[in-house]
Protein backbone atom coordinates (compact mmCIF):
# COMPACT_ATOMS: atom_id res chain seq x y z
CA UNK A 1 0.00 0.00 0.00
CA UNK A 2 1.52 3.27 -1.03
CA UNK A 3 1.70 6.10 1.43
CA UNK A 4 -0.88 8.43 0.15
CA UNK A 5 -0.94 12.12 0.87
CA UNK A 6 -3.79 12.88 -1.43
CA UNK A 7 -5.49 16.12 -2.06
CA UNK A 8 -8.60 16.08 -4.12
CA UNK A 9 -9.94 19.33 -5.31
CA UNK A 10 -12.50 20.67 -7.65
CA UNK A 11 -11.33 23.95 -9.03
CA UNK A 12 -13.13 25.32 -12.03
CA UNK A 13 -14.37 21.83 -12.72
CA UNK A 14 -10.87 20.39 -12.42
CA UNK A 15 -10.56 17.08 -10.65
CA UNK A 16 -6.96 16.69 -9.52
CA UNK A 17 -5.11 14.35 -7.21
CA UNK A 18 -1.58 14.68 -5.89
CA UNK A 19 0.40 12.27 -3.74
CA UNK A 20 2.61 9.23 -4.01
CA UNK A 21 0.94 6.69 -6.23
CA UNK A 22 1.92 3.55 -8.03
CA UNK A 23 0.88 3.46 -11.67
CA UNK A 24 -2.02 1.17 -10.74
CA UNK A 25 -3.18 3.61 -8.06
CA UNK A 26 -2.85 6.53 -10.47
CA UNK A 27 -4.86 4.57 -13.05
CA UNK A 28 -7.58 3.97 -10.48
CA UNK A 29 -7.80 7.71 -9.90
CA UNK A 30 -8.25 8.24 -13.64
CA UNK A 31 -10.78 5.41 -13.83
CA UNK A 32 -12.71 7.18 -11.05
CA UNK A 33 -12.88 10.34 -13.12
CA UNK A 34 -9.80 12.29 -12.00
CA UNK A 35 -8.33 14.04 -15.03
CA UNK A 36 -5.13 15.27 -13.40
CA UNK A 37 -3.05 12.84 -11.37
CA UNK A 38 0.31 13.94 -10.05
CA UNK A 39 2.70 11.59 -8.34
CA UNK A 40 5.46 13.62 -6.74
CA UNK A 41 7.44 13.71 -3.53
CA UNK A 42 7.03 17.48 -3.67
CA UNK A 43 3.29 17.13 -3.15
CA UNK A 44 1.33 20.28 -3.89
CA UNK A 45 4.62 22.14 -4.52
CA UNK A 46 5.31 20.00 -7.56
CA UNK A 47 5.76 22.39 -10.52
CA UNK A 48 3.67 20.26 -12.86
CA UNK A 49 0.82 20.23 -10.37
CA UNK A 50 1.17 23.97 -9.81
CA UNK A 51 1.12 24.59 -13.57
CA UNK A 52 -1.96 22.41 -13.93
CA UNK A 53 -3.91 24.31 -11.27
CA UNK A 54 -2.76 27.64 -12.67
CA UNK A 55 -4.21 26.64 -16.02
CA UNK A 56 -7.59 25.74 -14.54
CA UNK A 57 -9.28 28.96 -15.53
CA UNK A 58 -7.40 29.41 -18.79
CA UNK A 59 -8.47 28.28 -22.22
CA UNK A 60 -5.16 26.76 -23.29
CA UNK A 61 -3.56 23.86 -21.45
CA UNK A 62 -0.18 24.58 -19.85
CA UNK A 63 3.14 23.75 -21.41
CA UNK A 64 4.93 21.64 -18.85
CA UNK A 65 8.61 21.68 -17.94
CA UNK A 66 9.17 18.36 -19.64
CA UNK A 67 7.88 19.67 -22.96
CA UNK A 68 10.78 20.94 -25.02
CA UNK A 69 10.97 24.64 -25.72
CA UNK A 70 13.65 24.02 -28.32
CA UNK A 71 13.21 22.69 -31.80
CA UNK A 72 11.81 19.21 -32.20
CA UNK A 73 12.04 16.86 -35.15
CA UNK A 74 8.69 16.74 -36.92
CA UNK A 75 7.34 14.14 -39.32
CA UNK A 76 3.96 13.98 -41.01
CA UNK A 77 2.41 10.54 -41.53
CA UNK A 78 -0.28 9.87 -44.12
CA UNK A 79 0.13 6.14 -44.81
CA UNK A 80 -0.23 3.38 -42.25
CA UNK A 81 2.67 1.37 -43.66
CA UNK A 82 4.98 4.35 -43.16
CA UNK A 83 4.55 4.16 -39.41
CA UNK A 84 7.07 1.33 -39.24
CA UNK A 85 9.81 3.60 -40.62
CA UNK A 86 9.07 6.73 -38.60
CA UNK A 87 10.99 5.76 -35.50
CA UNK A 88 14.21 5.05 -37.38
CA UNK A 89 13.86 8.41 -39.12
CA UNK A 90 13.41 10.23 -35.83
CA UNK A 91 16.32 8.47 -34.18
CA UNK A 92 18.60 9.07 -37.15
CA UNK A 93 17.98 12.81 -36.86
CA UNK A 94 18.67 12.91 -33.15
CA UNK A 95 21.88 14.58 -32.00
CA UNK A 96 21.78 12.53 -28.81
CA UNK A 97 22.35 8.79 -28.84
CA UNK A 98 19.31 7.05 -27.40
CA UNK A 99 20.20 3.93 -25.41
CA UNK A 100 18.67 0.59 -26.32
CA UNK A 101 16.26 0.27 -23.38
CA UNK A 102 14.94 3.78 -23.89
CA UNK A 103 14.86 3.32 -27.66
CA UNK A 104 12.68 0.24 -27.31
CA UNK A 105 10.29 2.03 -24.97
CA UNK A 106 9.98 5.06 -27.24
CA UNK A 107 9.47 2.79 -30.25
CA UNK A 108 6.66 0.96 -28.49
CA UNK A 109 4.96 4.16 -27.34
CA UNK A 110 5.24 5.67 -30.82
CA UNK A 111 3.76 2.56 -32.43
CA UNK A 112 0.76 2.59 -30.08
CA UNK A 113 0.10 6.32 -30.41
CA UNK A 114 0.52 6.26 -34.19
CA UNK A 115 -1.72 3.22 -34.57
CA UNK A 116 -4.40 4.88 -32.47
CA UNK A 117 -4.11 8.09 -34.48
CA UNK A 118 -4.25 6.37 -37.86
CA UNK A 119 -6.73 3.55 -37.27
CA UNK A 120 -8.97 4.76 -34.46
CA UNK A 121 -9.11 8.58 -34.52
CA UNK A 122 -11.34 9.05 -37.53
CA UNK A 123 -15.00 8.12 -37.37
CA UNK A 124 -17.79 8.05 -39.92
CA UNK A 125 -21.39 7.61 -38.78
CA UNK A 126 -20.17 6.79 -35.29
CA UNK A 127 -17.88 4.00 -36.50
CA UNK A 128 -14.18 3.89 -37.08
CA UNK A 129 -13.45 4.99 -40.62
CA UNK A 130 -10.34 2.90 -41.18
CA UNK A 131 -9.64 -0.75 -40.59
CA UNK A 132 -6.49 -2.21 -39.12
CA UNK A 133 -6.67 -5.05 -41.57
CA UNK A 134 -5.97 -2.79 -44.54
CA UNK A 135 -3.25 -0.37 -45.57
CA UNK A 136 -4.60 3.08 -44.87
CA UNK A 137 -3.93 6.30 -46.78
CA UNK A 138 -5.16 9.28 -44.83
CA UNK A 139 -6.71 12.28 -46.55
CA UNK A 140 -4.57 15.42 -46.52
CA UNK A 141 -6.69 16.94 -43.76
CA UNK A 142 -6.23 13.80 -41.68
CA UNK A 143 -2.41 13.77 -41.67
CA UNK A 144 -0.93 12.68 -38.34
CA UNK A 145 1.94 14.75 -36.96
CA UNK A 146 4.78 13.41 -34.86
CA UNK A 147 7.18 15.56 -32.82
CA UNK A 148 10.23 14.12 -31.16
CA UNK A 149 13.21 15.32 -29.15
CA UNK A 150 15.91 13.32 -27.36
CA UNK A 151 18.02 14.59 -24.49
CA UNK A 152 20.45 13.01 -22.04
CA UNK A 153 17.57 12.63 -19.59
CA UNK A 154 14.97 11.09 -21.84
CA UNK A 155 12.78 11.54 -24.88
CA UNK A 156 9.82 13.76 -25.67
CA UNK A 157 7.23 12.39 -28.05
CA UNK A 158 4.02 13.93 -29.33
CA UNK A 159 1.45 12.54 -31.76
CA UNK A 160 -1.40 14.72 -33.08
CA UNK A 161 -4.41 13.69 -35.10
CA UNK A 162 -7.27 15.72 -36.52
CA UNK A 163 -9.98 13.28 -35.47
CA UNK A 164 -10.42 14.59 -31.94
CA UNK A 165 -12.20 11.46 -30.74
CA UNK A 166 -10.17 10.40 -27.71
CA UNK A 167 -12.63 11.30 -24.97
CA UNK A 168 -11.68 11.12 -21.30
CA UNK A 169 -14.26 8.39 -20.72
CA UNK A 170 -12.52 6.21 -23.27
CA UNK A 171 -9.13 6.67 -21.55
CA UNK A 172 -10.65 6.01 -18.13
CA UNK A 173 -12.47 2.89 -19.34
CA UNK A 174 -9.31 1.57 -20.95
CA UNK A 175 -7.23 2.02 -17.80
CA UNK A 176 -9.96 0.53 -15.63
CA UNK A 177 -10.19 -2.56 -17.82
CA UNK A 178 -6.43 -3.06 -18.05
CA UNK A 179 -5.57 -2.42 -14.38
CA UNK A 180 -8.65 -3.61 -12.54
CA UNK A 181 -10.00 -6.57 -14.46
CA UNK A 182 -8.76 -9.86 -15.85
CA UNK A 183 -10.10 -8.92 -19.27
CA UNK A 184 -7.24 -6.67 -20.32
CA UNK A 185 -7.56 -7.46 -24.00
CA UNK A 186 -10.55 -6.52 -26.15
CA UNK A 187 -11.39 -9.38 -28.45
CA UNK A 188 -14.20 -7.90 -30.52
CA UNK A 189 -12.78 -4.47 -31.28
CA UNK A 190 -10.40 -3.70 -34.13
CA UNK A 191 -7.75 -2.66 -31.63
CA UNK A 192 -6.66 -4.77 -28.68
CA UNK A 193 -7.51 -1.97 -26.24
CA UNK A 194 -4.06 -2.13 -24.68
CA UNK A 195 -2.44 0.91 -26.30
CA UNK A 196 -3.27 3.61 -23.76
CA UNK A 197 -2.47 1.22 -20.91
CA UNK A 198 0.92 0.34 -22.39
CA UNK A 199 1.70 4.02 -22.88
CA UNK A 200 0.50 4.95 -19.38
CA UNK A 201 2.59 2.14 -17.91
CA UNK A 202 5.74 3.15 -19.81
CA UNK A 203 5.96 6.93 -19.74
CA UNK A 204 6.84 9.32 -16.91
CA UNK A 205 4.58 12.16 -17.96
CA UNK A 206 1.50 12.00 -20.14
CA UNK A 207 -0.63 14.86 -21.38
CA UNK A 208 -3.70 14.46 -23.57
CA UNK A 209 -5.42 17.47 -25.12
CA UNK A 210 -8.65 16.69 -26.91
CA UNK A 211 -10.70 19.15 -28.94
CA UNK A 212 -13.76 17.11 -29.90
CA UNK A 213 -13.91 16.41 -33.62
CA UNK A 214 -10.97 18.77 -34.23
CA UNK A 215 -7.82 17.27 -32.81
CA UNK A 216 -6.21 15.08 -30.20
CA UNK A 217 -2.65 15.80 -29.12
CA UNK A 218 -0.89 13.25 -26.94
CA UNK A 219 2.44 14.35 -25.52
CA UNK A 220 4.67 12.30 -23.28
CA UNK A 221 8.04 12.17 -21.62
CA UNK A 222 9.89 8.88 -21.42
CA UNK A 223 12.70 9.17 -18.92
CA UNK A 224 16.09 7.58 -19.34
CA UNK A 225 16.91 4.98 -16.69
CA UNK A 226 19.34 7.33 -14.95
CA UNK A 227 16.78 10.08 -14.49
CA UNK A 228 13.72 7.86 -14.14
CA UNK A 229 12.00 8.26 -10.78
CA UNK A 230 9.06 5.94 -10.14
CA UNK A 231 7.79 8.53 -7.68
CA UNK A 232 7.56 11.19 -10.38
CA UNK A 233 4.68 10.70 -12.74
CA UNK A 234 1.91 12.85 -14.12
CA UNK A 235 -1.23 12.32 -16.14
CA UNK A 236 -3.19 15.28 -17.43
CA UNK A 237 -6.25 15.23 -19.63
CA UNK A 238 -7.61 18.47 -21.04
CA UNK A 239 -10.67 18.71 -23.19
CA UNK A 240 -14.16 17.61 -23.82
CA UNK A 241 -15.92 14.48 -24.85
CA UNK A 242 -14.76 12.55 -27.85
CA UNK A 243 -16.88 9.93 -29.50
Amino acid at each position, binding site marked *: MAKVAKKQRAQAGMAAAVGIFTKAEAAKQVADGVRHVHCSELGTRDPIYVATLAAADKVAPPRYLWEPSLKTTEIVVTHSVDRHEIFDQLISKSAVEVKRQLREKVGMVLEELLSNAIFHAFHTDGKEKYSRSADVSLNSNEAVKVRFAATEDGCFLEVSDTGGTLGFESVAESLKRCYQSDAQ*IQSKESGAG*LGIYMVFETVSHLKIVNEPNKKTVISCWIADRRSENPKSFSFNYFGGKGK
Partner: protein
Amino acid sequence: MINDRFKIDIATEGGVQKVFLRGNIDEDADFESIKKITGTIVINFKDVKSINSCGIRTWVNFLKEITGRQVVYEECPPIIVRQMNMVPSFLGTAKVTSVYVPYVSDETDEEKLVLFGADKFTAAGFTLPDTINGDDGEMELDGNPQQYFAFTKKMAA
Protein backbone atom coordinates in the same frame (compact mmCIF):
# COMPACT_ATOMS: atom_id res chain seq x y z
CA MET B 1 -0.71 -10.40 -48.02
CA ILE B 2 2.97 -11.31 -47.51
CA ASN B 3 4.28 -10.25 -44.12
CA ASP B 4 7.95 -9.46 -44.64
CA ARG B 5 8.25 -7.99 -41.16
CA PHE B 6 7.81 -11.27 -39.32
CA LYS B 7 9.13 -14.78 -39.84
CA ILE B 8 8.91 -18.13 -38.08
CA ASP B 9 11.69 -20.70 -38.35
CA ILE B 10 11.36 -24.17 -36.89
CA ALA B 11 14.57 -26.07 -36.22
CA THR B 12 15.66 -29.06 -34.20
CA GLU B 13 18.24 -28.42 -31.49
CA GLY B 14 19.41 -31.20 -29.21
CA GLY B 15 16.56 -33.41 -30.36
CA VAL B 16 13.98 -30.75 -29.50
CA GLN B 17 11.97 -28.85 -32.08
CA LYS B 18 12.21 -25.12 -31.44
CA VAL B 19 10.27 -22.23 -32.85
CA PHE B 20 12.31 -19.13 -33.62
CA LEU B 21 10.23 -15.96 -33.91
CA ARG B 22 11.97 -13.22 -35.87
CA GLY B 23 11.09 -9.59 -36.54
CA ASN B 24 8.05 -7.58 -35.59
CA ILE B 25 4.96 -9.16 -34.06
CA ASP B 26 1.84 -7.19 -34.96
CA GLU B 27 -1.70 -7.80 -36.16
CA ASP B 28 -0.39 -9.46 -39.32
CA ALA B 29 1.69 -12.09 -37.52
CA ASP B 30 0.49 -15.64 -38.21
CA PHE B 31 1.42 -18.40 -35.77
CA GLU B 32 -0.50 -21.20 -37.47
CA SER B 33 2.63 -23.10 -38.51
CA ILE B 34 3.59 -23.61 -34.85
CA LYS B 35 0.60 -25.88 -34.28
CA LYS B 36 2.12 -28.72 -36.30
CA ILE B 37 4.82 -29.25 -33.66
CA THR B 38 4.24 -32.28 -31.51
CA GLY B 39 5.05 -32.40 -27.82
CA THR B 40 6.35 -29.41 -25.89
CA ILE B 41 6.38 -26.15 -27.83
CA VAL B 42 9.63 -24.27 -27.24
CA ILE B 43 9.47 -20.66 -28.35
CA ASN B 44 12.72 -18.75 -28.84
CA PHE B 45 12.15 -14.97 -28.70
CA LYS B 46 15.75 -13.86 -29.18
CA ASP B 47 15.21 -12.22 -32.56
CA VAL B 48 11.90 -10.47 -31.87
CA LYS B 49 12.46 -6.80 -32.62
CA SER B 50 9.13 -5.35 -31.55
CA ILE B 51 5.63 -6.29 -30.53
CA ASN B 52 2.59 -4.04 -30.50
CA SER B 53 -0.73 -4.31 -28.68
CA CYS B 54 -2.42 -6.13 -31.54
CA GLY B 55 0.55 -8.48 -31.77
CA ILE B 56 0.07 -9.24 -28.08
CA ARG B 57 -3.59 -10.03 -28.72
CA THR B 58 -2.71 -12.26 -31.66
CA TRP B 59 -0.23 -14.16 -29.51
CA VAL B 60 -2.62 -14.49 -26.55
CA ASN B 61 -5.33 -15.80 -28.89
CA PHE B 62 -2.83 -18.29 -30.28
CA LEU B 63 -2.02 -19.50 -26.76
CA LYS B 64 -5.73 -20.08 -26.20
CA GLU B 65 -5.83 -22.27 -29.30
CA ILE B 66 -3.08 -24.50 -27.92
CA THR B 67 -4.44 -24.71 -24.40
CA GLY B 68 -3.27 -27.89 -22.73
CA ARG B 69 0.03 -28.03 -24.60
CA GLN B 70 3.22 -27.45 -22.64
CA VAL B 71 4.83 -24.19 -23.75
CA VAL B 72 8.35 -23.01 -22.95
CA TYR B 73 9.71 -19.51 -23.54
CA GLU B 74 13.46 -19.18 -23.95
CA GLU B 75 15.93 -16.37 -24.63
CA CYS B 76 13.36 -13.67 -23.90
CA PRO B 77 14.78 -10.18 -24.63
CA PRO B 78 13.67 -7.15 -22.57
CA ILE B 79 10.99 -6.30 -25.13
CA ILE B 80 9.29 -9.63 -24.39
CA VAL B 81 9.92 -9.50 -20.64
CA ARG B 82 8.13 -6.14 -20.52
CA GLN B 83 5.04 -7.66 -22.16
CA MET B 84 5.07 -10.61 -19.74
CA ASN B 85 5.02 -8.09 -16.91
CA MET B 86 2.37 -5.79 -18.38
CA VAL B 87 0.00 -8.38 -19.82
CA PRO B 88 0.00 -11.58 -17.74
CA SER B 89 -1.94 -13.52 -20.38
CA PHE B 90 1.01 -13.02 -22.72
CA LEU B 91 2.88 -15.46 -20.49
CA GLY B 92 -0.12 -17.67 -19.85
CA THR B 93 0.96 -21.01 -18.43
CA ALA B 94 4.30 -21.00 -20.24
CA LYS B 95 7.49 -21.83 -18.42
CA VAL B 96 10.34 -19.36 -18.90
CA THR B 97 13.73 -21.05 -19.07
CA SER B 98 15.97 -18.07 -19.90
CA VAL B 99 15.85 -14.30 -20.28
CA TYR B 100 18.25 -11.61 -21.42
CA VAL B 101 19.06 -9.03 -18.78
CA PRO B 102 20.30 -5.60 -19.85
CA TYR B 103 23.53 -4.21 -18.42
CA VAL B 104 24.95 -0.77 -19.13
CA SER B 105 28.03 1.28 -18.35
CA ASP B 106 27.39 4.91 -17.47
CA GLU B 107 31.08 5.61 -18.04
CA THR B 108 31.44 4.22 -21.55
CA ASP B 109 27.78 3.92 -22.64
CA GLU B 110 28.46 0.27 -23.46
CA GLU B 111 25.29 -1.85 -23.48
CA LYS B 112 25.08 -5.60 -23.22
CA LEU B 113 22.34 -8.21 -22.94
CA VAL B 114 23.35 -11.15 -20.76
CA LEU B 115 21.45 -14.43 -20.91
CA PHE B 116 20.49 -16.00 -17.57
CA GLY B 117 18.88 -19.38 -17.05
CA ALA B 118 15.89 -20.03 -14.82
CA ASP B 119 18.15 -21.06 -11.95
CA LYS B 120 18.85 -17.33 -11.50
CA PHE B 121 15.23 -16.23 -11.26
CA THR B 122 12.35 -17.91 -9.47
CA ALA B 123 9.17 -16.71 -7.83
CA ALA B 124 11.15 -16.72 -4.58
CA GLY B 125 13.66 -14.20 -5.92
CA PHE B 126 16.62 -13.74 -8.22
CA THR B 127 20.36 -14.09 -7.92
CA LEU B 128 21.91 -11.88 -10.55
CA PRO B 129 25.22 -10.06 -10.37
CA ASP B 130 24.71 -6.34 -9.77
CA THR B 131 27.68 -5.68 -12.03
CA ILE B 132 29.51 -7.52 -14.80
CA ASN B 133 32.72 -6.83 -16.67
CA GLY B 134 32.28 -4.92 -19.90
CA ASP B 135 34.83 -4.26 -22.62
CA ASP B 136 36.08 -1.14 -20.85
CA GLY B 137 35.10 -1.54 -17.23
CA GLU B 138 32.25 -2.41 -14.98
CA MET B 139 28.66 -2.50 -16.18
CA GLU B 140 25.60 -2.37 -13.97
CA LEU B 141 22.14 -3.81 -14.26
CA ASP B 142 20.01 -1.50 -16.40
CA GLY B 143 16.76 -1.13 -14.53
CA ASN B 144 15.02 -2.39 -11.44
CA PRO B 145 15.37 -6.19 -11.12
CA GLN B 146 12.29 -6.38 -8.89
CA GLN B 147 10.23 -4.91 -11.72
CA TYR B 148 12.04 -6.84 -14.43
CA PHE B 149 11.38 -10.20 -12.82
CA ALA B 150 7.85 -9.42 -11.66
CA PHE B 151 6.59 -12.03 -14.15
CA THR B 152 8.11 -14.83 -12.06
CA LYS B 153 5.35 -14.32 -9.50
CA LYS B 154 2.81 -15.26 -12.16
CA MET B 155 4.83 -18.10 -13.62
CA ALA B 156 3.48 -21.61 -13.22
CA ALA B 157 5.62 -23.70 -10.89
